[in-house]
């Protein structure tokens, strides 16, 4: 079947200044930017600090550990290219650093998950893209 697919949802790592993020992600490391001027860890990573406009940001590695804040199992309505992954679990993870982010929750079943449970960062391949994921600790 030919679908009218203009582009993939996955960003092209060579068309963003966040190339480093995607390179390290593929190596299984979760990184982000940090502003030394205001001691602020960002999420998502960015090129300019939203607090002080500083462009001289540092890359730091996150612990990759945190707690499950909320989660759902998607049974229907996947966007293009993800239909074959249904059903899948999406969660909001609260990292020990205090950052909240959205990610796939993998290597588990919906019925086995609980709000507040410990999870750790992992990646799952989708073609040559690494999907930011978490699994129970």
């Amino acid at each position, binding site marked *: 079947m030919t*679908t*009218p697919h203009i582009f993939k*949802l*996955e*960003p092209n790592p060579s068309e*963003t200044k966040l190339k480093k993020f995607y390179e390290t992600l593929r190596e299984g490391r979760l990184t982000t930017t940090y502003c030394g001027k205001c001691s602020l860890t960002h*999420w*998502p990573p960015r090129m300019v600090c939203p607090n002080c406009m500083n462009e001289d940001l540092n890359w730091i590695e996150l612990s990759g550990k945190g707690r499950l*804040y*909320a*989660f*759902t*199992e*998607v*049974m*229907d*309505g*996947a*966007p*293009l290219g*993800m*239909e074959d*992954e249904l059903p*899948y679990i*999406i969660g*909001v993870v609260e990292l020990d650093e205090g*950052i*909240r*982010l*959205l*990610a*796939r929750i993998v290597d588990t079943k*919906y019925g086995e998950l609980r*709000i507040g449970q410990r999870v750790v960062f992992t990646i799952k391949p989708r073609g040559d*893209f690494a*999907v*930011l994921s978490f699994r129970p600790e």
Partner: protein
Amino acid sequence: MNKAAIVGAGLSKFGKRGDVSLRELAAEAAVEAFKHAKNIEPRDIDAVFVSCAQPERLVVQSNVSPLIAEYLGVKPSRGAVRVEAACSSGGVALRLASAMIAGGYAENVLVLGVEKMHAAPREEVMTSLSIVADREWESIHGINAPAGFALVAQRHMHEYGTTEEQMGYVALKNHKNGEMNPKAMFRKRITIQEYADSPVISRPLKLYDCSPICDGAACVILTAAERARRYNDTPIIIEAIAQSTSGNTVSSLESLTTWPAMREAVSQAYRAAGVGPGDIDVAEVHDCFTIAEIVEYEELGFCEKGMGGRFVEDGQSDIGGRVAVNTSGGLKAKGHPIGATGVAQAVEIVFQLQGEAGKRQVGGAEIGLTHNLGGFAVNHVVGIYRRAT
């Protein structure tokens, strides 16, 4: 400041409208709005706002505001523009149009909300809805609107003990109201058993928690309050219309169940209109998912935080309850054509305040409220309306 008044309101039939194109759908609502008003014709309109969220993807057409203006025979000497703010596009368009009138930039403004969602392949529609989230950081995980609000539902159940059955009562009420609205997409009541048995879309949300994919259009004609009686015997004054925005991602939200941007818009609107939650007789709120309506009762101050589930279960938001909410059937039963929704909410409030809402009329309604939401509950528009005295 010159307040704006609504002197004409119209709605197309909502639903699966394979029989009309985008512009024809728009025209159905516009023609009804001109008929609802008096002494005003397309040539009297000097500015046009079209709210339409994703015509490029859904019907492969850009620049829809001049396109629709031309089709309607409107030559807007003060300009035509399209407004996009995801599901809150209509509310934002209404607010900008009111500001044009308040600032003296235009005299008679046409606000037209429209979306045709059924023409595109289903997976294109799902992708279009998904990219309202942040594509690079959220949509790539396969998030869609049901999943986003499923997270809200889970947290609300966890923090306040809200139940699936209480969410079901929102669906029951809105389907019951939709049955009385000839323009609604779904005109049938449902039972709590049918609700419980409906297929799971994104746990814990089921089909009957979701607003549908829908085609539809809504239109209002605005003019300055002091000129309004020329065009309608019972103009409806926009006492206040406020908008507030947080970020876009879930990372930007303090909480999934407390929405500071909504609180901000709500308090701005109440303050500007000089009213409080106890004064509202009828409200159209953004029930894109049943849980959203529950959170909104709380953020609007209709009940205490965490008590939204109880509020609907006790019938307080029924017609005849403390405040009638979503008498039109809401997004749930009337339908949710993205760009049309915010305008359609105002249309229902106009009919209610004019006493023209037929079987679903709220007796003696004097003050109405609209709440229109966009994205991951990140953008909120709140309007307050009163019959001209």
